């Protein structure tokens, strides 16, 4: 009797499961996925909650602020852009399942600005956007590998790579701090090994290097780092880590009155975020910093002015920082790519548009883009600045001096790039 009941239960639940699952299956679409007569659907995964979300969770709001502005001004050939955002909590498993939802359920045309090296890599391997022909526009990681168009044929980098940054830092040291004792704080993983490779190419000699394990950043650990830099009598200390590493280092240094010449990498060097987290402006003063886009406080820059005005209206009360600027910049470039993809954009025509015209896309960066038929390299350099007495990164002597290079053994050269004027009203031409 009991056995019968159980068998019945199994059969019943199996039937239920089949009916339920089949009912939710969605019929296939005819036209290009994610493009209808009225809208273009894009998808984004990134950490919106959890410890890694600090700062980055402003990116969707920033991108949406630009897309809303664009939609209110006619969209792309009359189509409005919709951005579907999913929280991956900075976990590869989540990134894969959310990306699956974006592609298979939400049926987005393209993915935009996914964040984190391990996440993008897991998605490339499991979801395999390349095999599905889904474009992955402007990934938010400085890992140089994603620019490899052979390995990741549908993925486009936008940030300059960590190798490029280290090479440009090395060049700056050779020119300005020759003979000084240099110390380096770096993350003990691929992020750091990319940096070490760049410094090696630049010929930088270190008096001391201090690695830290990702996740070990804390005030007490920072005090330990300082002891090592002090013991080696470092004149210049480079912080090539994430924001929290710079944060604990600078805050602890302020307490211990330790004040070498700081040099802060772009990943952990957003002044707005650091100051909001409690780093005194005075500690940042005179530190050397690096960025591909103009200073976020530079309201004389037409892009910064334009983006910050839109952002202030769309997300009142939220500070305009580097993450916001980069998010809006990527949204602006995405809009131009979609426009260049033609009246009836397809995934193929979208990628072809970036290959052929991507290098000329208008954007706020002060260094050129490296897209071509064979290259998916994004921005190719940084400008070097100093932090002002108010703790904001500003160009030395008032003019932006930018350097460009590659992720290989190419030389670091002073950029002659003249950024074209912003298209009228900040809309794609």
């Amino acid at each position, binding site marked *: 009797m009991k056995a019968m009941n159980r068998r019945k239960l*199994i059969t019943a639940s199996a039937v239920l499961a089949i009916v339920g699952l089949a009912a939710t299956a969605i019929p296939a679409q005819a036209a290009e996925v994610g493009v209808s007569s009225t809208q273009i659907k894009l998808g984004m995964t990134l950490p919106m909650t959890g410890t890694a979300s600090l700062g980055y969770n402003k990116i969707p709001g920033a991108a949406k602020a630009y897309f809303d502005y664009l939609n209110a001004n006619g969209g792309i050939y009359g189509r409005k852009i919709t951005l579907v955002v999913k929280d991956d909590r900075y976990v*590869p498993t989540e990134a894969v*399942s959310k990306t699956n*939802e974006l592609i*298979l*359920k939400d049926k987005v045309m393209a993915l935009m600005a996914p964040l984190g090296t391990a996440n993008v*890599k*897991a998605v490339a391997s499991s979801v*395999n956007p390349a095999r599905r022909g889904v474009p992955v526009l402007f990934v938010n990681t400085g890992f140089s590998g994603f620019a490899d168009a052979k390995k990741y044929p549908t993925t486009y980098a936008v940030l300059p790579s960590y190798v490029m940054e280290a090479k440009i830092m090395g060049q700056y040291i050779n020119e300005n701090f020759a003979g000084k004792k240099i110390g380096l704080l770096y993350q003990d993983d691929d992020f750091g090994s990319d940096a070490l490779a760049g410094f090696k190419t630049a010929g930088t000699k270190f008096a001391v290097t201090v690695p830290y394990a990702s996740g070990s950043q804390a005030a007490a650990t920072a005090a330990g780092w300082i002891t090592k830099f002090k013991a080696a009598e470092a004149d210049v200390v480079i912080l090539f880590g994430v924001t929290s590493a710079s944060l604990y280092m600078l805050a602890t240094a302020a307490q211990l009155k330790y004040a070498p010449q700081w040099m802060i990498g772009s990943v952990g060097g957003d002044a707005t975020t650091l100051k909001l987290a409690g780093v005194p402006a005075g500690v940042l003063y005179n530190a050397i910093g690096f960025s591909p886009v103009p200073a976020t406080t530079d309201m004389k820059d037409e892009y910064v002015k334009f983006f910050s005005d839109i952002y202030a209206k769309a997300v009142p009360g939220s500070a305009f920082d580097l993450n916001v600027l980069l998010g809006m910049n990527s949204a602006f470039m995405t809009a131009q790519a979609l426009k260049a993809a033609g009246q009836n954009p397809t995934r193929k025509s979208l990628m072809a548009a970036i290959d052929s015209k991507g290098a000329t896309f208008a954007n706020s960066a002060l260094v050129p883009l490296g897209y071509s038929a064979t290259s998916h390299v994004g921005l190719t350099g940084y400008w070097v600045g100093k932090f002002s007495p108010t703790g904001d990164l500003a160009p030395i002597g008032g003019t932006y001096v930018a350097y460009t290079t590659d992720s290989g053994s190419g030389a670091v050269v002073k950029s002659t790039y003249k950024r074209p004027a912003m298209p009228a009203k900040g809309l794609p031409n």
Partner: protein
Amino acid sequence: MHKRHNSSHIIPFILGGVVLYFISGMVDELRVYQGASIAVYVVAISSIILLTGYSGQVSLGNGALMAVGAYAAAVSHISWHIPIILSFFVAVLVAALAGALLGAAAARLSGPYLAGTTLALAIGLPSLANQFSILGGEQGLLFDVGFPPLSLGENFTQYKWFFWIAALAALIMMWLLQNILQSRYGRTWRAGRGNEVAAQLAGINTGRSKILAFTLSAGLAGLAGAMLSMTIGTVSPSAFPLALSFSLMTGAVLSGITTLGGVIIGAVVLVAIPEIADVVAHRLGSSESVTTNLPGLIVSGLLILTVLFVPNGPVEQHRARKARHEAEHNSSKK
């Protein structure tokens, strides 16, 4: 009373497999992927149920043992070119070995001390991968089980292949586990959980029995880790965060931690909740902060409700009610 209670027949599992086979051919790719995730969680949660529910050891380090299994599988496949099928066995063996070592220490600890030790493991172990270049650092290693065999047809998707592998592994494991739990070992674990002193007086070596439970549970966790890595194609430290260990624990509690029967409930809940939350948030048209925090809220709510109303899990509760009902029925007959 009934033969079924002494040994678990293989037939229901085969039937289950046949049903899953037909389902996998009928639903779209996203559901197939979710099915594979459910199979992974089934194995991972049953490893916790074995350890915590049956042998009474509270461990929060399951994610770490999954990481051990995942790395063992990937390294053995990449560095030593072991066939992919065997690499799953390597995952089980290496994780079980780690579990045996850990279990030897754990047998001396209990309650919060054991939980604390395993918690430290869950935090520390995955980031160790950054220290050894063979483990690929933060980016991790690729773990590619390869394309499905061509004989399955051109339209056979990668995810269906994952699902087949994961579902088959889960079914086999569940069958094995069901039999182990109903054997002498299962009874000694339960005896030790119920009252350790009484169990020792009855001649059970509780220390050894605990280590055995830890070893088996770790082997299962290792398999789950390798399966998880298969579904995301990579192994990296960030794939095994502390949150994974916690959500598996949540899944185990929702399943009813002392019965294997409910394990599918916890696994389905873990996969379905984010999607349900998404639909709810979409209907309500709520803001981003609501959408992103809703899954956590729903899971916590469910957890509290489970502990309040069905502390032993829905399946156990149902059985208890049935047993009570039968007892009443019998006594009224008399």
